[in-house]
């Protein structure tokens, strides 16, 4: 990767912090206070275990919404709003630019969750940060590749990603127990259903590595497909 693009990474991180980071923290605070408010009102005491479980519940809810917000328009915004014109008249490879943007958004996303977990530890109850942080990173990476591909292909990526998410969940609930072709179809769909299970497994320390591999592998394939789309598809 060329130096000019690497030097631009800090600008991309700054864009994430300003355009999305603050919104993500507000979403986290809103969901967190909704869950914690009644418990505080009833003066329920927190043990280490209950605090960990409550934080896991909050993170599992926030991470999904936050990932959708963080990944919204990661590629398509520049096309939709015409920003690509000046950006890519400079000596920059389009796929490399967006691959780096994805990495910086991931760094920003994890940093935002580190802040949220830190706030929980200071204001509610001290907790070990690693498991919720790993889960939030896993959610971003699992959705990230799929969102990246959709954003490379379509201008209005956010509704399409939500649609894919909903259709996948509906199909899983309808045909999960059926054999033959329905099972093959489910295998081809994004493995979103693995994520809620993963939250409990990470907290319990019983993660099935093959499931993690499937989640991340599916997303990685989509990410590479997105890069190929950016390489081959006209931008204007």
């Amino acid at each position, binding site marked *: 990767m060329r130096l*000019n693009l690497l030097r631009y990474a800090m600008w991309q991180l700054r864009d994430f912090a300003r355009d999305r980071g603050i919104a993500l923290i507000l979403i986290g605070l809103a969901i967190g206070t909704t869950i914690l408010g009644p418990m505080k009102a009833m003066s329920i005491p927190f043990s280490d275990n209950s605090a960990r479980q409550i934080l896991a519940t909050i993170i599992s809810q926030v991470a999904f919404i936050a990932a959708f917000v963080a990944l919204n328009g990661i590629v398509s915004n520049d096309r939709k709003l015409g*920003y690509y014109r*000046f*950006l890519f008249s*400079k000596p*920059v490879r389009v796929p490399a630019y967006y691959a780096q943007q994805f990495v910086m958004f991931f760094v920003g996303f994890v940093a935002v969750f580190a802040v949220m977990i830190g706030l929980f530890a200071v204001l509610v109850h001290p907790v070990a940060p690693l498991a919720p942080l790993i889960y939030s990173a896993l959610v971003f990476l699992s959705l990230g590749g799929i969102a990246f591909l959709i954003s490379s292909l379509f201008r209005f990526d956010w509704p399409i990603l939500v649609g894919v998410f909903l259709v996948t969940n509906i199909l899983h609930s309808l045909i999960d127990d059926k054999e033959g072709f329905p099972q093959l179809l489910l295998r081809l769909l994004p493995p979103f259903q693995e994520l809620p299970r993963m939250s409990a497994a990470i907290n319990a320390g019983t993660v099935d590595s093959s499931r993690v591999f499937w989640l991340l592998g599916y997303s990685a394939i989509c990410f590479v497909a997105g890069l190929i789309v950016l390489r081959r598809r*006209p*931008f204007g």
Partner: protein
Amino acid sequence: MIEFSSTGKVYKSLLGRSVTAVEEFSLQIGEGEILGIAGPNGAGKSTLISLLLGYIRPTHGSVRIDGLEPRAYVERNGIGYLSELMSVNPNWKAEDALSRFATLAGIEPGDIPGRVDAVINQLGIDEHRFKKIKALSKGNLQRLGLAQALLRDERIMVLDEPTHGLDPVWTQRFRGIVEDLRKPGKTVIIASHNLDELQRLADRVAIIDRGRLQRVVQTGYSQTTETAGVYRIAVVSGAGLMSEMFPAAVDIGGGEFEIRIAGVSELNASIARAIAGGVMVASVVPSRSVLEQQFREAVGETG
């Protein structure tokens, strides 16, 4: 250096409807040249520029810059580009935007503040440097766009409607900036509706209409019939003599006359005769520039 070879671009909608934006376009643009591109709205100018920057690929023929596909050339070298549509995030500050583009352009980090200062001063936007893009007026936005195109000394400059939104003072200064770009090894392409501007700045002007190259016009004057046309002569005194000497002259008021002339030789002879006859001439200008005449003929409007 830049070569369009039978280039064509057809857009297809999802419903299968085709729109031909550029058709059989062939043109070579050399180093050290300033080329103008003129054409009515929808003629294909923006498509040509998008092809040149590699934002879209031709459906027929090819575009090459130094023998490379445009995208490959841009990724290696960059092009100084001013877009007709300002394409900067409205939440960025003007100075930050220039620093970002300078970073992407490959200017060394230590040189960026100095280079940004230089273009800010050159384009007179110092008082706006800390303002957000959305707070800038159209003219200042245009100057910012030009500033980012000038950040690095690019070999190729593509300026799409560069004086759009500029006031007369900055339009004049812009001409000076473009004249400064005229250097050996540098190529400047200006797409504009403003024929007078192209006449002054460009060496040649490619006139396109309905996606096709209609003709390429040399902008300099020569002793050929190309200079035939109507000239406007303003006189300080001796207006009465003008009608006697040139019975076909049309008095358009304010001491100005329009005379149809067959070429520059006849023009010079006529002016000499008028002066010798006692007419005090203040100015002589073509009623329509050579380019304007050619343009009207090329796009099907004569007269």
